[in-house]
């Protein structure tokens, strides 16, 4: 009886507690909800302004008090200091510079004065100029020189000397942030200490002059540490925030730390439990990937400075964000962009689209937001899709479900009618193979902005000049060489298998009849081929570079995704002779594959704004957008004319004049490799033949399509063969049986 009562009482107590706790919880949870709705009521409206003086390149930028922006403008090896005030006025602050001296970096002290890091070179211009002297100058905001601190060459260790940022703490110590270290300089110019961080420093900033914090990508995560002056080292700063790679931090006036993770701006005060989310940059059409500095003003306006490198001329942009009631802002139709990861290119494309469209705005819905594991992400995504609440625009690169499955459940719209109907568009304008990559049964399900070509590269003398080869050819090549000659660098059994399956995986599957034949000789041959590679590889940091190995004949092939003509030229250089992009071994067909290398999207059948989605697709395929891909290795544009224009550009040499006045060809791209950058490859204008080879490769490339489920079964089962537990035949037999179940189920 007693026990019974206890039990009953226990259940009642737990239930009450649970409900009470839940009630309490409910309240707590309502807070962010309320905040969210409040956030929904407001929106930060951005006004943009291109920063800089006519003809001057914007260099170092720093935000001062009350939204003033100080920046260095450079022109013909001369630098000037400018200030841009919140009223919109912009003027030069006169700085008296000695000969061969430039303003490298600007910073501030704790009293509202400016610091300038001045570098004096032995000569101006040219690639070989050396830093002779570094001076830290303190000036008042109107330009009056308050102090000159000469540090001589104390900080200059080698040619790679580069000042990232500069500040002064309340005790009058100067902190100079170099690439991998922090130098602390006393008032008299004597160095106090240099703290080596050992890795590239993301940012250095002071928290209200009290503490100096440094952020960098540590061993496992992005870290923020405090400079411990007495100990001449960094010490851990206990903050409950997780930062991600790419986080940009700075010290604020209203809050201790301002930082951006992903697409959002947060503030954080030391000692607080949690950061405060301020805004989502995407909502204000700002690509957070380009952000350089930001500051929140006392009147809640946000000033953000960003550099856009996507066009030929880098654009320095200042945005002033004003908090406005949503009702005051003209309403745009909202389209959602669903993805499980936000790559930089999608962010840039969405922001650019939003900025130019006055009818639509795209909001990115990241299903992985929060700390979710993959399974949860997939089930959320699936539940949304199947109930018809899915996003209007579906990111195909980061969709957790493959195209085939989306097609079979009827979620993705056929884009061909749109393409045919649209008067502005012409199918013939686009690279056929790139369109084909997402085509199935004559229906086009997704479009990509730019692409790369996955292939295998080797010397013509090794692999011949054919356009494809078989596994037997590869094995023959392997057998013809000494045993210490590597076929690929750092390739495990698993990598090799994966590689072989990428293009050949679907060969063993007869989709039509729902059968497969993994237990025949062909597949076993692949397994045996993969088994020739080591179980594990360790990356040898001090070992010879790939170029060295290739030149010594110890490495035969590279497997790469080629995204530019320059890259091809690089490989020619690496191999030191004629090369052939032969592709992966197949049984006759082309072994090169087109892979998306930029924003790739499909249209949701359930979208209520299909016109809007098409607008976005058109925007991606638009001539202007096609001709201005973000960076050198962004990939090949899918528009033929843009591609040809790119080729044209690749073949045109550009020149510059060096210090002596001799005309020199400017390198198109520079690669460094090896542990300490000892191998530098410069690539110049391409020849017609090189471009033709790329063109030919694009024209013959197929599309990679491997069913991820089959793939994971193969990987799972082949392990026991690689481990020597089973014979290749038995492993192949198990694969056959399991894949057959899968195929049966699919029918």
């Amino acid at each position, binding site marked *: 009886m007693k026990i019974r009562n206890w039990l009953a009482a226990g*259940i009642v107590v737990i239930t009450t507690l649970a409900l009470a706790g*839940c009630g309490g919880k409910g309240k707590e949870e309502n807070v962010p909800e309320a905040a969210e709705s409040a956030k929904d009521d407001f929106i930060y409206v951005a006004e943009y302004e291109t920063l800089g003086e006519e003809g001057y390149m914007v260099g170092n930028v720093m935000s001062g008090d009350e939204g003033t922006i100080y920046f260095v403008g450079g022109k013909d090896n001369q630098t000037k200091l400018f200030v841009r005030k919140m009223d919109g006025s912009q003027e030069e602050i006169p700085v008296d510079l000695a000969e061969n001296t430039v303003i490298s970096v600007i910073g501030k002290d704790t009293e509202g004065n400016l610091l300038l890091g001045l570098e004096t070179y032995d000569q101006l211009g040219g690639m070989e100029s050396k830093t002779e002297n570094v001076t830290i100058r303190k000036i008042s905001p109107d330009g009056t020189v308050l102090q000159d601190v000469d540090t001589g060459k104390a900080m200059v260790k080698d040619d790679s000397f580069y000042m990232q940022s500069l500040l002064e703490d309340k005790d009058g110590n100067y902190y100079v942030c170099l690439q991998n270290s922090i130098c602390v300089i006393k008032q008299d110019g004597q160095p106090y200490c240099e703290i080596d961080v050992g890795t590239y420093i993301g940012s250095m900033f002071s928290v209200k002059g009290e503490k100096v914090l440094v952020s960098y990508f540590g061993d496992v995560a992005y870290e923020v540490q405090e400079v411990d002056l007495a100990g001449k080292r960094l010490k851990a700063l206990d903050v409950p925030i997780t930062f991600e790679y790419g986080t940009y931090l700075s010290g604020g006036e209203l809050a201790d730390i301002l930082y951006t993770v992903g697409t959002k701006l947060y503030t954080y005060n030391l000692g607080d439990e949690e950061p405060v989310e301020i805004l989502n940059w995407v909502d204000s059409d700002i690509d957070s990937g380009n952000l350089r500095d930001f500051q929140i003003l006392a009147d809640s306006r946000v000033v953000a400075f960003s550099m856009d490198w996507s066009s030929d001329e880098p654009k320095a942009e200042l945005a002033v964000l004003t908090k406005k009631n949503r009702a005051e802002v003209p309403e745009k139709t909202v389209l959602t962009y669903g993805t499980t990861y936000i790559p930089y290119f999608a962010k840039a494309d969405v922001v650019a689209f939003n900025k130019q469209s006055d009818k639509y705005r795209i909001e990115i819905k990241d299903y992985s937001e929060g700390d979710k594991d993959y399974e949860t992400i997939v089930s959320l995504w699936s539940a949304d899709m199947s109930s018809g609440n899915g996003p209007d625009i579906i990111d195909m690169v980061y969709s957790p479900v493959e195209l085939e499955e989306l097609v079979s459940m009827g979620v993705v719209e056929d884009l061909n009618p749109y393409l045919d109907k649209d008067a502005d568009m012409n199918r013939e304008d686009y690279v056929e193979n790139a369109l084909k990559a997402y085509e199935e049964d004559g229906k086009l399900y997704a479009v990509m902005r730019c692409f790369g070509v996955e292939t295998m590269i080797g010397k013509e003398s090794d692999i011949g000049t054919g356009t494809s080869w078989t596994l037997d050819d590869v094995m023959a090549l392997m057998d013809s060489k000494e045993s210490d000659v590597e076929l690929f660098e750092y390739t495990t059994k698993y990598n090799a298998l994966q590689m072989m399956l990428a293009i050949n995986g679907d060969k063993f599957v007869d989709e039509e009849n729902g059968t497969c034949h993994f237990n025949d000789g062909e597949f076993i041959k692949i397994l045996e081929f993969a088994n020739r590679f080591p179980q594990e590889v360790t990356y040898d940091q001090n070992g010879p570079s790939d170029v060295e190995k290739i030149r010594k004949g110890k490495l035969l092939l590279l497997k790469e995704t080629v995204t530019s003509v320059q890259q091809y030229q690089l490989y020619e250089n690496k191999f030191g002779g004629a090369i052939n992009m032969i592709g992966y071994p197949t049984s006759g067909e082309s072994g090169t594959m087109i892979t998306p290398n930029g924003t790739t999207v499909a249209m949701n059948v359930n979208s209520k704004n299909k016109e809007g989605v098409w607008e976005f697709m058109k925007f991606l395929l638009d001539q202007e957008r096609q001709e201005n891909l973000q960076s050198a290795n962004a990939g090949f544009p899918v528009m033929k004319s843009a591609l040809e224009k790119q080729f044209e550009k690749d073949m045109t040499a550009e020149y510059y004049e060096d210090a002596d006045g001799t005309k020199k060809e400017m390198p198109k791209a520079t690669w460094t490799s090896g542990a300490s950058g000892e191998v530098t490859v410069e690539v110049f204008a391409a020849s017609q033949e090189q471009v033709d080879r790329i063109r030919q490769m694009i024209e013959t490339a197929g599309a990679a399509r491997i069913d991820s489920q089959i793939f994971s079964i193969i990987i*799972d089962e082949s392990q*026991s063969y690689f481990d020597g537990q089973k014979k290749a035949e038995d492993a192949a037999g198990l694969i056959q049986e399991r894949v057959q179940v899968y195929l049966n189920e699919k029918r």
Partner: protein
Amino acid sequence: MRKKKVKIFLKKWSAVLIAAFFAILFLMPIILTITNSFMASSEISSNYGQVFASGSTGGKTYISEKVNLKFIPDMVSFSQYITVLLKSPDYLFKFWNSVILVAPIVFFQLMVAVLASYGFTRYRGRIKEIIFFTYIILMLMPYQVTLVPNYLVSSWLHLLDTRWAIWLPGIFSPFAVYLLTKFMRRIPISVIEAAQIDGAGEWQIFRRICLPLCKGCLCSVAILVFIDYWNMVEQPLILLSDDTMHPLSVFLSKIKNGEIGLAFAVATIYMIPTLLVFLYGEDYLVEGITYQGGIKG
């Protein structure tokens, strides 16, 4: 006579032996879970690392080294517990989530069910039998089938992402109704009729006669319902997109490599409520199942 004694002795102890053999088999996993939770993570990974070493696709892969199953840790270590209880409040938070989700379900499911089973017991007719049969069928539905419709219904009722989406289907689950009805129908009709003749109304019969007789059974059903929901995985995963509301069982259902040691500790902690429920309720599990108060079994 002596021979008979020996025979009885032998019989008795051979029964014990058989029972002991089964007991060892049955106890092994629980003992392993507890002892392994006191191993340092290095010991764990050297023992089991190979089982859960995963290829980059995430599939489980098997590597050909010895896999040890050890009962006694080389060195007793509390490091896993320190991590779970002190370093990472997340686990305790999730544990609390489990309690919040499960306790109301158990309590209210029993309330609803005991009423319903009384309804099913009294005045049995064709319609009621059909309804009862439907309950059994619904009870047997696998979760995958009902999950998406449940998701839709929850979203129609605006319950999605709130705990109600878990609570309400749980509270009205037919499982307890089935068990309790099975039990109540064994209460001899004569007991109830006697009360009826004394002029008791339905509510009084339910309150004064049925409920007291059902107490044991209620406890045993409570235990079963508790265990069922304490281990739920799929429902919260789909219906609560905010994973701060997820119960600990969701974490336990997917252990990643490197978390195995932690998983043992978490599992051990997670077993404690079940253990307590069992210790207090085991007798009811046995007694509560069959009605013994009447004239016939």
